C-alpha cells in the first residue's frame, strides 16, 4: 500500500511526542510542584495566603486581640489591642509572619489537611481554608497596664503565673502597629529602636543586681548568717577598667548585711561574701539557674547568643566574681529571669513558660487545651524560696506603697551595665491570699530614674488586684 509504512512511522512519531508531552506535564504537575510553587516569585502563593481565613487570637478571658474580617476586596487582618502588638506579632502577605502569628502559623492558617476528607474538601471542592482560633495565656488588662506605664520607654516586661509558667504579660518596647506594617516596614526595619526585636524573648541583658536574689538564695541554702555585717558595704566596686558598680539607693550606713545590701542594691557586701568560703559554691550557680540554657518559647525567635559554656563559666575567680555580680560574661533574656522569679514566687520549681492556652477548631464552639510538656524541676528549696519572698517584701516595702489589702507583693530594684548603657530592673512577685502567685520582671533601658520602673511595678499590682476583683 502506497505511503502506508511512512504514514505509520509519522503517526507513531507524533504519538511519541504526545506521550513525551504527557510525561513532561506529569512532571511539572506532580513531581516538580513543590519547588516551583514555593518560589518567592510565584504570585499564586501570595494569592492563596490572602484567601486563608486566619483564626482569631484571644486573651485568656477570650477577649479578641487579633481577628480576620471581610474587607471590601479581600480578607483583612485586624490587630485590636495595641498593648499586645509586640507579643502577637504580625501577618503580612509581603513580609511574612512574626510573634504569636509566626509561632502558631500552622494552627492559625489551618495548615496542611490532616485527613483525606479535608484534603478533598480543600483541594477538590476548593473550600476556603479556615484557621483555628487560639486563646493565649496573656491577660489584656495586665498587658495594657504595663504598656501604659512603660509608654515611651525601651525595654521589656514579663509576667508569669508561678504555679505553671503561663505568661500573663509579654511586652517589648518600642513596638510597632501591625495594622500599618506594609506602609511602615522600611522605616521600622531601619529604626534604631529595633521594634521587631522582641526584647522580652531575645534581649541579652546583663542581669547586674538581679543576681543578688540568687546570691541570697545561695547564702540561705548554705546557712550563712544573714546578720553578718560587711564593712564598707556602700563602697563602689571597680570590676574592670570600664565597669564600676555602686549602690542603687544610698544606704543609711556603711556596714551592711546581705539583706540590707539587697534592699539598697549595694554590690560590695555580695563581693565580700563571694570572696570568702562561699565563693566556690557560688561559681556553680550560673548552671544551677540555667543561664547557659535560658527559657525559650517554642516557635518564637530564640536569643541570639547563649551564656558561655561551662568551661568558660568556670574561669578565673575574677571572672566568677563578675559573673556572680551579673556584670560578667553572662547575659539573660527577661523571660528567663522571670522564670527564676516564678520559682522564687512559688515552691522553688522552675516551670518552662508557655503562652498558648487552648485551641478552637473552625466551626466548633469548644476549646481544646493546648498540649504542652510538663517538665517542672526544682532549682530552690521551698524554705529558701519562702525566705527570699520575705526579703523581697521588705525590699518592696522600702520602695513603694503597700499593695491592695488581701495581696502581698515583693520586689527588688537592680541595675546593670552593658556596653550600650544602663538597665534598670524590677524583679518581684505578687500573691493573693487565695494562693495565686505571679512573678514579674521589668527591665528598662537607659532609665535614669528608678521611679519609672517602680511606676510600672505599681501599675502591674493595680491591674492584678483589679483583675481579682472582677
Amino acid at each position, binding site marked *: 500500500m502506497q505511503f502506508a509504512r511512512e504514514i505509520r512511522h509519522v503517526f507513531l512519531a507524533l504519538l511519541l511526542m504526545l506521550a513525551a508531552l504527557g510525561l*513532561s*506535564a506529569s512532571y511539572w*504537575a*506532580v513531581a516538580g510542584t513543590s519547588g516551583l510553587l514555593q518560589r518567592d516569585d510565584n504570585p499564586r502563593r501570595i494569592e492563596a495566603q490572602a484567601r486563608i481565613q486566619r483564626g482569631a487570637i484571644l486573651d485568656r478571658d477570650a477577649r479578641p486581640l487579633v481577628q480576620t474580617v471581610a474587607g471590601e476586596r479581600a480578607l483583612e487582618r485586624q490587630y485590636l489591642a495595641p498593648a499586645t502588638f509586640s507579643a502577637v506579632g504580625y501577618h503580612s502577605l509581603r513580609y511574612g509572619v512574626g510573634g504569636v502569628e509566626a509561632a502558631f502559623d500552622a494552627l492559625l492558617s489551618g495548615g496542611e489537611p490532616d485527613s483525606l476528607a479535608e484534603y478533598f474538601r480543600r483541594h477538590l471542592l476548593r473550600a476556603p481554608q479556615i484557621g483555628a482560633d487560639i486563646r493565649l495565656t496573656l491577660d489584656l488588662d495586665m498587658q495594657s497596664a504595663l504598656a501604659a506605664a512603660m509608654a515611651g520607654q525601651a525595654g521589656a516586661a514579663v509576667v508569669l503565673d508561678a504555679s505553671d509558667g503561663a505568661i500573663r504579660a509579654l511586652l517589648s518596647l518600642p513596638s510597632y502597629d501591625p495594622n500599618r506594617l506594609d506602609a511602615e516596614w522600611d522605616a521600622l526595619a531601619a529604626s534604631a529602636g529595633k521594634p521587631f526585636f522582641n526584647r522580652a524573648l531575645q534581649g541579652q541583658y546583663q542581669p547586674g543586681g538581679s543576681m543578688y536574689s540568687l546570691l541570697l538564695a545561695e547564702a540561705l541554702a548554705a546557712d550563712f548568717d544573714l546578720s553578718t555585717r560587711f564593712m564598707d558595704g556602700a563602697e563602689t566596686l571597680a570590676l574592670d577598667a570600664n565597669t564600676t558598680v555602686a549602690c542603687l539607693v544610698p544606704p543609711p550606713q556603711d556596714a551592711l548585711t546581705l539583706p540590707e545590701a539587697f534592699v539598697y542594691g549595694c554590690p560590695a557586701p555580695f563581693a565580700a561574701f563571694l570572696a570568702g568560703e562561699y565563693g566556690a559554691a557560688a561559681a556553680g550557680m550560673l548552671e544551677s539557674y540555667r543561664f547557659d540554657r535560658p527559657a525559650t518559647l517554642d516557635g518564637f525567635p530564640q536569643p541570639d547568643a547563649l551564656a558561655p559554656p561551662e568551661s568558660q563559666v568556670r574561669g578565673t575567680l575574677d571572672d566568677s566574681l563578675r559573673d556572680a555580680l551579673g556584670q560578667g560574661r553572662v547575659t539573660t533574656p527577661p523571660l528567663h529571669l522571670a522564670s527564676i522569679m516564678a520559682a522564687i514566687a512559688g515552691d522553688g520549681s522552675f516551670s518552662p513558660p508557655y503562652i498558648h492556652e487552648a485551641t478552637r477548631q473552625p466551626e466548633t464552639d469548644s476549646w481544646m487545651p493546648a498540649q504542652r510538656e510538663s517538665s517542672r524541676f526544682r532549682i530552690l528549696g521551698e524554705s529558701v524560696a519562702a525566705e527570699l519572698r520575705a526579703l523581697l517584701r521588705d525590699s518592696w516595702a522600702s520602695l513603694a506603697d503597700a499593695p491592695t489589702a488581701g495581696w502581698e507583693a515583693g520586689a527588688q530594684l537592680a541595675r546593670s551595665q552593658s556596653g550600650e548603657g544602663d538597665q534598670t530592673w524590677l524583679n518581684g512577685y505578687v500573691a493573693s491570699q487565695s494562693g495565686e502567685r505571679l512573678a514579674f520582671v521589668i527591665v528598662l533601658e537607659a532609665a535614669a530614674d528608678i521611679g519609672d520602673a517602680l511606676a510600672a511595678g505599681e501599675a502591674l499590682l493595680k491591674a492584678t488586684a483589679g483583675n481579682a476583683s472582677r
Partner: protein
Amino acid sequence: MSRLGRPAAGDRVEWLLLALAACFVAAGMASLSLALPDRPGAWIGLAVWLAGAGLGALLLRRYLPRRDPLLYPVAMLLSGWGLVAIERLAPAFAARQSAWLLIALAGMLAVALKPQALRWLRRYRYVLLALALTLLLATIALGSNPSGFDLAPRLWLSVGTVFFQPSELMKIVLLAFLASYLGEGSAALRLQEARPAPFLSPRLLGPTLLMWLLSLLILLWQRDLGAAMLFFLVFLLLLYVAYGDWRVLLGGSLLALLAGGVAYAIFDVVRLRVDIWLNPWLEAEGRAYQVVQSLMAVASGGIFGAGPGLGSPGYVPVAHSDFIFAALAEEWGLLGVIAVLGCFGAIAWRGFAIASQWSGRAFHALFAAGLTIMLVGQALMIMAGVLKLAPLTGVTLPFVSYGGSSLLVCFLMIGLLLRLSAEAP
C-alpha cells in the same frame, strides 16, 4: 487505521461523542458561571456552540454520510473548551471568538460539502499559491498587530477592526501545493530507489531548498518563528511520506539546525526564545516571565486542576492566546492536559487513517497526511513550548486558542479531512 464502521453506525458514534462534548462544554460554562457570576456571556457562548455543533452535525449527516465520525466531535470539543477558557480568561474577546466559530463552521461545511473543493485546490494550486504568497508579502508592507504594540510582529492584515493572518491561509494552500507537487513526483522517484542516493535528486533537493528559503524568508521578514518552523517541519515530514527516504529527514534537520544557528546569531527573537528555553529561571521576572508563570500554572493545577474560574491563569500574559494550554492545565489539571493530548492523538489517528485509505491517489493521501501533520504538529509545538520541552514558537493551540484566522483555518482543515474521508475508496 481504518474506516470506523458503516455510515449509520458512524452517525451514532458522532452524535454520541458530540453529546458528550456538549455535556463537557455545558458543565464547563456552568462551573464558570458559578465561580465567576459576572460572566453572563458564558451562556451566550454555550448557545452559539450548541447551535453551531447541532446544525453542523445535521448537515454533515445529510450531505456527507460517509465522513469520519470522530474528527468533527473532537474539533467541536476542543473549540468548545476554548470558548470556556476564553470566556474565563478574556471575556471581552469571547463574543468575537463565538462569532468566528460560526464563520469557521460555515467554512468547514463549505469545503466539506463541496464536491469540487479538492479538485479546485489541486487544479489551481499555482494560482492559489501565488495569491497566498502575495498576501504574505503584503503583510510585510501593510501588516499590523491587533495588540497595537510597535514592537509586536506585524503578521495580520486588517480591514477595520477585523484582523486576518495570511500565514494561516498559507497553510492550506501550501499543503495542497506540496501534496500535488510531491504526489506527482513520488511515484517516479520511488521507482529509482534501486539507484544510489535518490534523495540527492533535484526533484527532492529543489523543493527542500525552496521551502527552507521560504521559511527563512518568513523568519527574516516577519520574525514569525512559529510559522517558519511549522512550515518546514510539515514539509519535511510530508517529503518523507512522499518519498519514503529517512535521509530527507536527516538532511532537512541539518538544514534546520544550520538555519537555527544562524538565526540565533542574527535575530534577537530567536536568541531570546532559545535562551529562556535553556534557562528561564535566570530571568524569571524578566524576559522569561511568561514561560516561568506558565510552568507555575501547570504546577498549580496539579492532577485535578483548580476548577473552571478558580485558578489564577491571569498571571500568564496572553493566556487566552498562545498560552491557553497553561490555563487549561491550571484549571483542569493534569487530567485536562491528558484529555487535550488525547484529542490531538485522535485527530492524528483519524487523519492518518484517512490518508492510508487513499493508497492509490498520491495527492489525496499526501494532502490528508499533510493536514493532519499541520494540525497536530502545531499543537505539539505550542504545548512543548509551554512545558519547556522546546523553545517557544508563538503559534496558537488549534481550535482552542483565541484567534479568528487560526480557528477558521483549523476548521477548514477539518472540513477537508471530512471531505477526503467521505470520498475515500
